[in-house]
């Protein structure tokens, strides 16, 4: 029983990581007043770039760099459309999702001819698992061994980065000048503008932060969790992350718990596949796989109380013309 629990929690951590990175990414953009439903597309673009660069260079770090670069580039497209040209943020986000979905599949097929996949990578071209000191020695100690050696140790560095990004984001948001201004510009850009701060530059910096974190999320998918990019491998994770962000009311620490919840459901779903559930029998795979999505709908539909988005979210800032 304990082993099963550790197993489920261990995969919860792995499955939550991309959600957490993407949700935190969205947090920066949305807190600045730029809604971003293009998280999915940025992740996908980053996953493809990381898979390609890692396969070509043999270095996972080069892969990460390429992933971040592509994701930031897509974020800047979103910024250019929504900040500079005051375009509709939802439309721009949708466009980026479609662009990434089509382009990654197309380029993948054109370059590697493996049905949209990138070549599988191994060794240094992947982010391997990091084994913590004494993990092997402690493995057989009851309880502690399971917790330390299985749950805490043995993840790749991006998993740790994702969970460290939570306190870091909290600190940025609530303890730095940048964070104060970021939160302010999402609530009342007029206040920021009249305080002599550039709304445009501030929002661009926010979407760049989003790009960087989405870069991490995408890279994790293709060369952390898997060994190659597969067409449309994000499979809606960007949207689940968005749901987690709303569920968590745009706050970093609750975002982590929301992502852990979604990750946990995913892990349970995997664990339950093919198992006999007492009283029900074998639960169809599809029903279990649908569980996280159903929960998303149920939670968003009314179990979270009122989620008040940043007040200036979704609208471009135009200086008032008196």
């Amino acid at each position, binding site marked *: 029983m304990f082993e099963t629990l550790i197993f489920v929690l261990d995969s919860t951590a792995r499955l939550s990581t991309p959600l957490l990175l993407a949700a935190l990414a969205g947090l920066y953009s949305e807190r600045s007043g730029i809604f971003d439903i293009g998280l999915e597309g940025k992740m996908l673009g980053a996953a493809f770039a990381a898979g390609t660069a890692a396969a070509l260079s043999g270095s996972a770090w080069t892969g990460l760099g390429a992933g971040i670069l592509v994701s930031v580039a897509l974020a800047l497209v979103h910024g250019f459309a929504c900040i500079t040209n005051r375009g509709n943020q939802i439309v721009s986000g949708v466009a980026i999702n479609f662009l990434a979905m089509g382009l990654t599949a197309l380029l993948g097929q054109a370059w590697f001819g493996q049905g949209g996949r990138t070549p599988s990578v191994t060794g240094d071209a992947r982010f391997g698992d990091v084994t913590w000191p004494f993990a092997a020695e402690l493995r057989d100690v009851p309880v502690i061994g399971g917790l330390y050696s299985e749950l805490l140790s043995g993840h790749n560095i991006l998993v740790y980065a994702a969970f460290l990004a939570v306190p870091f984001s909290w600190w940025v948001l*609530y*303890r*730095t*000048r*940048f*964070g*104060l*201004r970021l*939160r*302010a510009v999402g*609530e*009342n850009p*007029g*206040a*920021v*503008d*009249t*305080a*002599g*701060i550039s709304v445009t530059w501030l929002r661009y910096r926010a979407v760049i932060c989003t790009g960087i974190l989405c870069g991490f999320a995408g890279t994790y998918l293709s060369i952390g969790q898997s060994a190659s990019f597969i067409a449309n491998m994000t499979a809606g994770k960007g949207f689940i992350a968005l749901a987690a962000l709303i569920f968590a009311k745009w706050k970093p620490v609750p975002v982590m718990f929301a992502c852990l919840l979604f990750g946990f459901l995913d892990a349970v779903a995997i664990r339950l596949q093919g198992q006999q559930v007492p009283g029900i029998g074998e639960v169809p795979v599809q029903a279990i796989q649908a569980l996280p999505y159903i929960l998303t709908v149920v939670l968003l539909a009314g179990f979270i109380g009122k989620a008040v988005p940043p*007040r200036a979210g979704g609208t471009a800032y135009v*200086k008032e*013309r*008196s």
Partner: protein
Amino acid sequence: MSDQLAIELVGVDKRFGQVHANKDIHLKVRKGSIHGIVGENGAGKSTLMSILYGFYHADSGEIRVDGKPVSIPSSQAAIALGIGMVHQHFMLVENFTVLENVILGAEGGALLAGGVSRARAELKRLAADYDLKVDPDALIEDLPVGLQQRVEILKALFRSADILILDEPTGVLTPAEADHLFRILRVLRDEGKTVLLITHKLREIMAVTDEVSVMRRGEIVATRQTSKTSMGELAELMVGRRVLLEVEKGPPQPGRPVLTVENLTVRDTRGVDVVRNVSLEVRAGEIVGIAGVSGNGQSELLEAIAGIRAVTSGIVTVDGTRVDLARAGTDPAAMRGLGLAHVPEDRHRMGLVTRFPECENAILGYHRDPTYGRGPFLDFDRIRNAAKTEIEKYDIRPADCMLKTANFSGGNQQKIVLAREIERDPVILLVGQPTRGVDIGAIEFIHKRIVALRDAGKGVLLVSVELDEIRALADRVLVMFDGQVVGERAPETAESELGLLMAGASGQEAAE
């Protein structure tokens, strides 16, 4: 007041496309004075101040601060020159604390910790020096507007502003809050700060300024020493013709009751009773005014009677027909059918669809009237003709019934709504804030129309937060506080007594 100039504008000019917002402005503001800028809406006051604060750039002309020519390309530059601005719509982040709002943009370092403690000390000092007490850890959204405004002033002072621009600062304040603001402004002046006060309320100009400049259609038409001018002269300068500041009306001739409200209670979405057991009566041929500080249930009362807002209990009788509002539910069309017309408080949100052309707005709510079409089809020739008649009768400008309503000025938009409601010949007219954001010239016109309606033997229920307006128009004044009618007074009652009632004092306390 010294002879040194804090601000001098020389030939400042600004156009927005076709609109010439500021024409060759010459303005001298003395150091250590309170200088008023007065003018109607759209006279260019706000544009001029925005130029001073670096929000817009002048097309030509020179700005001198403390005698030196400067350029102000951004708000940051204005702040650096010691210019601070209190905007008409507060530039505050509502879910931030006072302290966070004050330091925003002047944090003093990449990390907040140091700046916050310094700001806390500085706020304490400013609060003591200028009588500007605010709890630094309170959230803005929990503060009444008067205190929010204080935060705006503190923001400017925290950035060591020597020149403070206030744009229509009293629009949202109660009379007492406005008086407190004026006291603060005088203290600021005595400490050597220069204050530029932009307003369209002449009483304020007379009460607090040392000098006043009048703007009309983008130009400064006169600058006067306040002690050597009068409200009448300023009003004439603003409008360009003589205006009647007093409403001319004879004694009322009340007839039968046309509107009776019994035990009306309204509960809002938070579960709070915002209107509590209100009963009132309006007779034909009289204007009943409801005075009160904004947010004491007047708006909800008006909406409930108009059939727009659901009530917990209440019976309304319009011209002899009893309607149990709690049972009838919200049905504004039915109320309208009984002869009740409603000019809502917020014309943009409820009175007009500003993207529609004028003529469509002129029939809004009455579009099912067979005059305007047959069955589901509208007859636009008739609609346009009706609109043209109203435009002429109410002097709505520009006289173009196909123009998008958003392009009319506030006063003309209000006239469109008023024309629509009055021309249906109602037995009772509900009017909320009839002159909010309306020019002096149009105010005069609107007031005359309302009085004419009364004299034609109709009932009028008037809600306004402008006590002056209530006293000028109403034949009886009801004061609302905290959802209840706390007293009825004659319009001649002293302003101080009404003010106290509005602030929740008991009738006896107010009379003393």
